[in-house]
């Protein structure tokens, strides 16, 4: 049994100030013999505890015939199990315990979280253990949940941005790979999901050696560990869910563009690149986050050129950390008449990212300080902090998160330049535009016109 304990030094890293006791947030971990990683975040500010289960599941595990089923499975977690015969009884039990509960599915993580008063922690954990180990996947409940999931799908499709993001992602990752990035999934696959497929997901991924149990809030490490042992200790270890690593997206051979027409009152520009994978190039993932922080500084050249000039209402460059190629995205909004000028300016700025003088030392120092303070904001809410820690555990490891802010503080200007050269400057991208049919017609806008400079259609 592996037990470790960290103290986050809070702001001291960045500010060289003596850390106050209140700035330190103790995290204790232990790995049970069955492989379940137990993460206890002690915070006694208010008398509640968030119990969270994070499973390394999600879109990345989905071949085309499972497209959307990681998410459907997440819904089925809240259905009948060995101890709870129906979702109606599930809701009753939830009320009895005063639970505030939810679950989410993303590309590389599925999580379930229940927040309760301190007197209900043990029954809440038992409730979750029954749900994760002994789901019944009743055919009737499966059939009844499909329209609910499709209702969630409908709400996504009602947003014009859904179509922009989907079309750009499908182009970036290729249609053949897209099922492994498509969280909401495919309507046909969802509508025809079977109990057998649910069982396959359960047996392959819902095992202790692919799961983290997080207890965050008013609980001591000793009590949390004892509860974890007694409630989850006999959950049998499963076979390695990833004897072979799931495939990464194929590289993008050349830049492409897509236009999405919807009745919208603004023009949205979305450009995406294949960014780093945390398992293959962790250094670049730290640099990527610092890079975005520096660009967001209102004094940055990026903001001056693109927003203060009036070219865009807003612009952001973001990296989404994943283990199987996280995308780098530029998201900007403007008016139709400024669209092409904005796009040209974005690519001109990106070309300059490779110049080591693009950022100043003062801007980098400010970003380091800002990142340190953001850590304090992140830790303030123990319920939300459980989700944060769980996300990083899923896409990488707790070690990655523990070192996250320290490693970001160590990022230098040359690391920023290296990151930009490796992933952005001159690299193939997908340019997407969301625009009204009328505005597109007025501009006579073609996909070819959106290709980055130097790309021959």
């Amino acid at each position, binding site marked *: 049994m592996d037990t470790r304990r960290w103290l986050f030094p809070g702001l001291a890293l960045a500010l060289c100030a003596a850390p106050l006791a209140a700035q330190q947030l103790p995290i204790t971990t232990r790995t049970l013999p069955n492989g379940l990683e137990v993460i206890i975040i002690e915070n006694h500010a208010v008398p509640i505890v968030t119990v969270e289960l994070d499973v390394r599941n999600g879109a990345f595990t989905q071949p085309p015939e499972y497209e959307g089923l990681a998410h459907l499975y997440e819904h089925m*977690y809240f259905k009948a199990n060995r101890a709870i015969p129906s979702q109606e009884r599930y809701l009753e039990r939830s009320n*009895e315990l005063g639970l505030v509960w939810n679950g989410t599915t993303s590309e590389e993580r599925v999580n379930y979280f229940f927040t309760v008063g301190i007197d209900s922690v043990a029954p809440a954990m038992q409730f979750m253990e029954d749900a994760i180990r002994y789901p019944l996947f009743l055919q009737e409940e499966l059939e009844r949940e499909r*329209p609910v999931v499709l209702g969630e799908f*409908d709400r996504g499709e009602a947003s014009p941005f859904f179509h922009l993001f989907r079309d750009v992602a499908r182009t970036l990752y290729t249609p053949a790979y897209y099922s492994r990035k498509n969280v909401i999934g495919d309507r046909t696959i969802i509508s025809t999901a079977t109990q057998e497929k649910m069982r396959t997901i359960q047996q392959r991924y819902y095992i202790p050696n692919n799961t983290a149990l997080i207890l965050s809030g008013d609980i001591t490490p000793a009590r949390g560990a004892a509860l974890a042992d007694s409630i989850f200790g006999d959950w049998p270890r499963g076979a390695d869910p990833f004897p072979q690593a799931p495939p990464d997206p194929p590289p993008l051979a050349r830049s492409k563009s897509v236009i999405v027409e919807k009745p919208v009152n603004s023009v949205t520009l979305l450009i995406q690149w294949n960014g780093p994978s945390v398992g293959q190039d962790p250094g670049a993932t730290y640099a990527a986050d610092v890079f975005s922080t520096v660009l967001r500084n209102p004094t940055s050249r990026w903001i001056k050129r693109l927003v203060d000039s009036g070219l865009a209402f807003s612009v952001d460059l973001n990296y989404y950390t994943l283990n199987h190629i996280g995308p780098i995205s530029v998201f900007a909004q403007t008016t139709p008449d400024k669209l092409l000028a904005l796009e040209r300016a974005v690519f001109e700025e990106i070309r300059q990212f490779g110049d080591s003088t693009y950022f100043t030392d003062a801007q980098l120092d400010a970003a380091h300080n800002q990142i340190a303070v953001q850590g304090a904001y992140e830790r303030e809410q123990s319920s939300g902090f459980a989700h944060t820690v769980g996300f990083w555990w899923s896409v990488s490891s707790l070690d990655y998160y523990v070192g996250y802010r320290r490693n970001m503080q160590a990022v230098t200007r040359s690391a920023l330049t290296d990151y930009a050269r490796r992933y952005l400057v001159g690299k193939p991208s997908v340019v997407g535009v969301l625009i009204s049919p009328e505005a597109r017609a007025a501009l006579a806008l073609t996909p070819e016109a959106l290709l980055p400079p130097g790309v021959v259609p």
Partner: protein
Amino acid sequence: MTRVLALIVLLVAAPLGAQQPAVAKFTAGGIPVILKPVTANEVIAIRLYVRGGSANLTPATAGIERLIGAMATEGTAKYSKDDYAARATASGVEFAAQAEHDYTVFSARGVTDHWAETWDLFTQAALHPTFPETELSVVRDQILNGLRQRRDDADTYLRWLADSALYAGHPYAVDPEGDEASITALTRAALARWHAQRMTKENLLLVVVGNVTRADLQAKVAATFGALPARGGAAASTAPLPARTPSVTVVQRDLPTTYVIGVFPAAGLADRDYPALRAATEMLSDRLFEEVRTKRNLSYAVFSGLQSDRANSGLMYVTAVEPDTTVKVMLAEVQRLQDEPIAASRIAQGINAYLTQYFMGQEANMSQADRLGRYELLGGGWDRAETLINRLRAVRPEEIQEAARHYLRHFTFAVIGDSTKIDRNLFTSR
């Protein structure tokens, strides 16, 4: 599995346990101050409320305080826009402003190691903005873009449609967010004049939650707020919403699902009926989730709740492919709440969940400051936020029924989607 609660402002309060620090209210620099010292974390939350909101606005000035808030960090008496941004970034200070129906609030979040900078940057932005003309042009365009986009998002547009009908003829009809005409016409001089008129001691309330001493805060407030005028630009009062006749506004749009909201005038935080109505809408929300989503699988997103305005309102919300069928079930649940008493044990269970939500709200200092400020201005005093859970516990089943009968009727519905699926008689039947 997300349980959609996007439109509900969750405001649950409970008695503070013995471990909770004491809240103090005092006057400093001539303005009322509420301080809650919190040592559990290093975050400091500041909220400055300017009373008034929609009641102080006209169609021509709609959105002026929103524009003032957006311009607050674009240049101040001490700092240029770039100086301000550089200092805020280096210290991690986050400034925000929000114009609401009953007040505008300027807020800042910082950490104890940067408390002095946090206070300096906050007071510069809230009290001493200079509204540079060049920045005004950029910010104005950003706000106009946001206003135009309200129609692009079904939820935002739905809410706007419902509010427009519910607030017709009431001061809240003047949108504190403004509209394209008012935002376009507002000048730098108008912003400066308005700011000077409204930023007076009689209009202000300051709330601070964090590891701050009373003596330190008193000194800072006296030094920065003391020179403000005592009176002027007084906040107008807001009457309750008038009774409405049932109505439905339908907007045809080619969407994969239909968006529906039904709103109704409701008891406010300070009203005697509030706990019973709060329990009724929470109970209704649970039953809608169970009947509409869990048993009948008609929707992914269904709930009910209460807002927290002075002229308060409540809502029922759903997105569904078969809106008529779904709304029939929802209205039947309303009827059941009015007709059938709820078991006391079920009310007690509901209180447990409220208590958990309350403590989740206590985790963040900014949400604590929000709750204290809101109750001080709208709820009969900050301390009543601490006693709501006891008032909820005292609610009897027959009071929930009575509140449901009195308030959950005469719905003002708004619908976006396939208009051919809407039976208007159904929507206006209650």
